[in-house]
Each structure stands twice: as structure tokens, then as C-alpha cells.
């Protein structure tokens, strides 16, 4: 069974493999629900006690996608469990009861339940629970993106059709907060006024988020943990739980970026230029990742066809983290992308390490190791794109391309869940190039993201845009990869369906990663300093624009305190 993330409707693998935790003290119902969920092709874990459920959830953060719990549990009130789960794990929770009294239902919703099912529960109700997971993910991405200052521009081409894929975001004011249907990420209050409630939800303002990211970068993505982040952030009213939950979302977001990147690279034609060139006009996928070029300018990260290949951008040499924006103009929409992808199974603990000037904050570096199988060389041949060969080196700079598992033939339209392997982790560390991050973040294969087979249907169209391979953003795979396969897959799916292409324009003091997805969904990473990038009208010009920017700007150091690689936004065009 495929464990796909959110695939487009065309892909019917999702939501198979959704990981559900069912909590009910009624053994009869527990068994029935388990059976029903299994019939829906979900992965089920059952629990007879609320505290057992919490244990399981805590043990395996990101081990579940959704929780279904009865309201009446002997050891703990179901609503309490609901709160805990929402706070600590931030998972969607569905409540169940034989009692359908409005007040109870209302209470459930107030406590954050995504849904409230009445027993006897029908199978069809369970089939639909994936919507809650999906919805939440989209919102999470949006939240983080808006925090990251991205602005998304909706691709006109796809229109509403894309929304199924969950990846089109309409242009919105980054500061706009959206209320989710089941949980509001943002309270009315500004700073997480603790007095409020049981929810204790924190408003993650842009500032707060930046503090967060900065802390993460400082600590080193591979070593990051809520407590350390919290300490560094030095925000008195913020709790560890708040940070944990935010971190989780952030990781998901990053993994999604990565997927998009992979997707994009595999989907789009990537023009590879010699990355070591400073001004590579285009984007080169550097073959040897290890080298750290001082001229960050090169920073071209290219993930080609599913090989998230990150070029080592001048890592330490830069005194300030600079964001490289690499854009790879693609003259042609990718079409037949043939990639020889190494066996995904060989993927190591997928880590994508980028060492580059991409903004390690505070001197730390973002290491992107392409998660890939150890064999990196992947050949991608696009009809119009020169073949690029990535050599995977074992230095820190290498990208282990977890995504390099693109199926050779582009005709593969679905993501094979089983190929999704470890997600690359981004480690920010000040170590030098020789660090191979994989070791640290070896994530279990489960979290690996494999190169997703590109789903060509969408993307292949005529993208005039280039495919900058900027895997930097992508590679921001969380260390530790708690990302579940599903989430990876989901993002992968989304990406695939939308065909993301990333652009990494480099701007003065700003790094923008533009991910053009399929039809140029590009998320603008980086700061609002360059409003022009947000201009939807610019889409068609972006490549050139970015291209130029790339050419000229890579030497610009960026203010390390402000930008980190991770802060690249996704520019959805």
C-alpha cells in the first residue's frame, strides 16, 4: 500500500497508509474501528486507555497522523486528552461518543476536536478522516510560510484545479492569519497570553518565528530540540510545548519544501551549469558537492529530477550567511525527464546537507545533504535540458539525494510511497564541509523521502520558467526527521502534482528561493524587501530576473541575523 501524502485526486494512493491512533475503552468498538480503518487502508494503532495513548504519542512524535478518541475514557476525560494531543503533538483529533448531545459536541469542538462522530460509526465516516489531516497540513504550511514572509502567488493556470493538490496558495498578505476549521493556530491575543485557556495557543508572529528560526539555526538543526530552542529564544511566556508544536510544523513545512524541490527538479527541466562557476548563469548542479566554494555565488543547488542535489554553496567561507538564490531557467517545460535514480533503498538516512552560504545563522551552516542513495550520479535527461550528472560525494556537502529515486521514466505519475525515503535533514552546524550530516540525522527509512516520481500531468506543461534547483529550501529537512512518511508523501504528492520548480534568485541581502512549481508555483522565500518578487505578474519574468540576480548577486552577504536558509520562503507563482 502506498503511503502517499496528499496526492492529487488523480492519484489514488492517498490517503492510504494514514496513521491513525484509536483510543477507546470499549473493546468492542476498538476492534470494530480497527477493522474499519484497516479496510480504509489506514495504518491503525489501538489503545484502551488515554494515558497509554499519550505515551504512544509522546514516544513517537510524528508517528501518527490523526487521533480518534472516545469522549468517555475511564482514566482521563476525553476532552483532556484532546487538549493534550492538540497542545503537545498538534495532531488532528476526532472525538467519538454514543452521546450526541449538542452541548457535548460543542465542548468537543471547543476543545479543538476536528470532528465529533456519533456511535454507531459508519465506515464511510472513517474513510473521510484523512481530510482533517490534509487540511491541517495545508494550514500548517501556510502558517509557516506566512511567517517566513512568503507570499504566494497563485498560478493562474491551474486555478482551482490545483487546490486539490493542496499546493496552490492564493496570494495573501503574509501577516494574514487564517483560522483553521478545527484549530486556530492563532489566537486573538498577541502574545500567547497564558491566561487564556486551555488552548494556550500561541500566536506565532513573524518576529517570534524568526527568533525561533534563528535559535534553530544557532543550535544546529540536527541538534535542535524544543527545550534548547526555548532557552535560546528567551521569550518568557513561551512554553516548551508551544515550541515543540511549532517545531513540528516547521519540520513538516521544510519537508514539504524539500519535496517540492524534488518534485520540481524531477519535474522540470533543469539546466545545469557548472556550479562552480560563480556566475553561472544558470544553475548548475554541481557535481561534487563537497567543495565549498567561497564564492557562494555559485550556490546553485540543483535537484534534478528527483535528485535533490544540493550544491555546496560556499559554506563557511562566507562570513555572513548569504542566501543564494539560484535560478535555473528552464526554457522548456520539462518533459521527458529521464532520471536514473539510484535505488531508493540505498538511500541513507536521508539527509540533505547544504553547506553553503545559505545562511547559516550565527555561523552555523546549513548542511544540506542530499538525501539520496549513496550513489548519486543521476542522470537526468530532459528533452531539452542537458544532462546533468550529479556526483555524490561523501563530504558534508554532498547531497544525499533522497529524492534521487525518480523513476527513469517520466511516465510514472504517482509517487510511490514505498520509495519515499528518509527525508533529508538540514543540519545547521558550523562544522565544515566535511561533515556528513547523514549520520546525525539518520532518520529511519520511514521518514525518508524518496525522489518522487514526478507526476507529470500537471507540471509538465509549458513552463517557461526555469527550474532553479534550489534545494536549499528543500533540503531543509528536519533533522531527526520526525516527519512521517505520510507527511513527506503528502508534500511530495502535492509537489508533484503541482510541479514545483524552485528558483533561487539571489538578492542583495536576501535570499530567495523561488520554487516554481509546475506552473510556477513559487514561493517567495525571504524577505519582503523585494516586493517585486511577490508580484504575480512577474512570474513569467522571474526566471530571467532571478537569473540575473543570481548572476550578480551572489556575493552579497546577507545579514546573518536575518536570514537563514531555512527562512527561504516558497514562492508560489
Amino acid at each position, binding site marked *: 500500500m502506498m503511503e502517499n501524502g496528499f496526492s492529487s485526486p488523480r492519484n489514488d494512493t492517498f490517503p492510504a497508509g494514514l496513521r491513525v491512533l484509536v483510543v477507546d475503552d470499549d*473493546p468492542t468498538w476498538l476492534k470494530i474501528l480497527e477493522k474499519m480503518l484497516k479496510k480504509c487502508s489506514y495504518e491503525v494503532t489501538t489503545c484502551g486507555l488515554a494515558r497509554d495513548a499519550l505515551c504512544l504519542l509522546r514516544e513517537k512524535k510524528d508517528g501518527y497522523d490523526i487521533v480518534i478518541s*472516545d469522549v468517555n475514557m475511564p482514566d482521563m476525560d476525553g476532552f483532556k486528552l484532546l487538549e493534550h494531543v492538540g497542545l503537545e503533538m498538534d495532531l488532528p483529533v476526532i472525538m467519538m461518543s454514543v452521546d450526541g448531545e449538542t452541548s457535548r459536541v460543542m465542548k468537543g469542538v471547543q476543545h479543538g476536536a476536528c470532528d465529533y462522530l456519533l456511535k*454507531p460509526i459508519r465506515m464511510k465516516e472513517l474513510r473521510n478522516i484523512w481530510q482533517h489531516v490534509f487540511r491541517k497540513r495545508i494550514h500548517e504550511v501556510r502558517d509557516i510560510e506566512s511567517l517566513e514572509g512568503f507570499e504566494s502567488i497563485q498560478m493562474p493556470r491551474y486555478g482551482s484545479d490545483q487546490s486539490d493538490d493542496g499546493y496552490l496558495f492564493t496570494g495573501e498578505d503574509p501577516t494574514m492569519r487564517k483560522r483553521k476549521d478545527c484549530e486556530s493556530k492563532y489566537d486573538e491575543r498577541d502574545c500567547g497570553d497564558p491566561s487564556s485557556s486551555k488552548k494556550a495557543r500561541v500566536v506565532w508572529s513573524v518576529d517570534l518565528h524568526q527568533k525561533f528560526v534563528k535559535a534553530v539555526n544557532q543550535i544546529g538543526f540536527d541538534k535542535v530540540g524544543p527545550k534548547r530552542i526555548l532557552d535560546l529564544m528567551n521569550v518568557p511566556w513561551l512554553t516548551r510545548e508551544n515550541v515543540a508544536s511549532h517545531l513540528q510544523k516547521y519540520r513538516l513545512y521544510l519537508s514539504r519544501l524539500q519535496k517540492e524541490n524534488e518534485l520540481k527538479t524531477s519535474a522540470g527541466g533543469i539546466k545545469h551549469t557548472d556550479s562552480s562557476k560563480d556566475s553561472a548563469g544558470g544553475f548548475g548542479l554541481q557535481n561534487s558537492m563537497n567543495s565549498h566554494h567561497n564564492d557562494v555565488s555559485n550556490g546553485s543547488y540543483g535537484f534534478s529530477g528527483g535528485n535533490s542535489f544540493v550544491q555546496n554553496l560556499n559554506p563557511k567561507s562566507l562570513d555572513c550567511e548569504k542566501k543564494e538564490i539560484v535560478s535555473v531557467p528552464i526554457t522548456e517545460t520539462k518533459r521527458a525527464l529521464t532520471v536514473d535514480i539510484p535505488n531508493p533503498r540505498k538511500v541513507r538516512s536521508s539527509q540533505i546537507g547544504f553547506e553553503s552560504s545559505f545562511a547559516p545563522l550565527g555561523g552555523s551552516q546549513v548542511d544540506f545533504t542530499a538525501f539520496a542513495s549513496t550513489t548519486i550520479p543521476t542522470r537526468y535527461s530532459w528533452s531539452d535540458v542537458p544532462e546533468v550528472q550529479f556526483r555524490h560525494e561523501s563530504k558534508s556537502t554532498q547531497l544525499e539525494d533522497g529524492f534521487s529515486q525518480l523513476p527513469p521514466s517520466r511516465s510514472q505519475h504517482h509517487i510511490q510511497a514505498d520509495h519515499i525515503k528518509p527525508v533529508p535533514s538540514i543540519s545547521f552546524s558550523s562544522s565544515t564541509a566535511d561533515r556528513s550530516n547523514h549520520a546525525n540525522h539518520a532518520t529511519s527509512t520511514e521518514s525518508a523521502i524518496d525522489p518522487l516520481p514526478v507526476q507529470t500531468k500537471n507540471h509538465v506543461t509549458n513552463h517557461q520558467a526555469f527550474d532553479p534547483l534550489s534545494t536549499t529550501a528543500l533540503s531543509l529537512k528536519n533533522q531527526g526527521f520526525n516527519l512521517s512518511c505520510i507527511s513527506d508523501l503528502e508534500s511530495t504528492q502535492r509537489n508533484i502534482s503541482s510541479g514545483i520548480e524552485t528558483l533561487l534568485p539571489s538578492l542583495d541581502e536576501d535570499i530567495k528561493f523561488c520554487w516554481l512549481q509546475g506552473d510556477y508555483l513559487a514561493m517567495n522565500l525571504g524577505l519582503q524587501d523585494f516586493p517585486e518578487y511577490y508580484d504575480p505578474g512577474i512570474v513569467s519574468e522571474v526566471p530571467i530576473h532571478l537569473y540575473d540576480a543570481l548572476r550578480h548577486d551572489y556575493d552579497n552577504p546577507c545579514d546573518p541575523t536575518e536570514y537563514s536558509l531555512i527562512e527561504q520562503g516558497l514562492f508560489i507563482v
Partner: protein
Amino acid sequence: MDRNHPQHQVLHMRRSLFDQGYIDKEQFIQLEELQDDANPNFAEEIVTLFYTDSARLIQNIEQILVNRPIDFARLDDILHQFKGSSSSIGAKKVKEACTQLREYCSAENAEGCMRTLQLVKQEYAVLKRKLETYFQMVRQVG
């Protein structure tokens, strides 16, 4: 088909369980639909679980009603569980009896509770008998 043909008997019995309101048809069919190679007798397994659970719940109720003062709050909880359990196999009459009992419980009517408990036990016993017979027949038919 011969009326006495076992398969026919099975169908007949099943139908009467539904028609006579012992078992909710939709729920029961759903249980049957969950049967597959992994669980070829899923419906029966569930029903068996139901027996065990019900027996336990009934015992708890009895214990509560024996004690003085009667812990109506706890009784209500148990009845809530019992209702949930009954809904799992669609045990309609048992569930209705539970609801009645629950009403007496909210009214804190000990007498009413005790009387209605008997009703619950009775309905449960009848249902259990019928289901046991039914599944026996099902097994015989193969």
C-alpha cells in the same frame, strides 16, 4: 429452496432478528461486511466481545444498585458505556432498556433503576440466546 434448508433458516433467522427489532440491520450488516480472509467470522467475534463486555457492565450495575447510597453518577457512566457497547452490534432492545434505566438513574429513582435493570438483563439474555443460535447456524452452513 427447501424451507428447512439450513441456509434458508439462517436467512430467516437473520431477517427476524432485524424485523423484530433485536438487532439493527445496518450495523449488523456493516459488521458482516467487515469480514474478510483475515477475519472470516468477524461479526461473531464482535458479538462475543459484546457478551463479555455486557456481562461485566451488568455486574457493575448490580453492584452499584446493591450499595447504599447508590452512586448514580457512576451508574450513569456505566450506562453510557453500555449504550456504546450495545451500539457496536446494533443491539436495539438492549440499548433501549439501557436508556430507560438511565432515565431513572438521572431521576435518582432507585426503585425504577432496579426494575429497569431487570428489563435490561432480560433483553440481554434473549438477544444473546438468539445470536448464539444464529451463529451456530451460520457455522453449520459453512
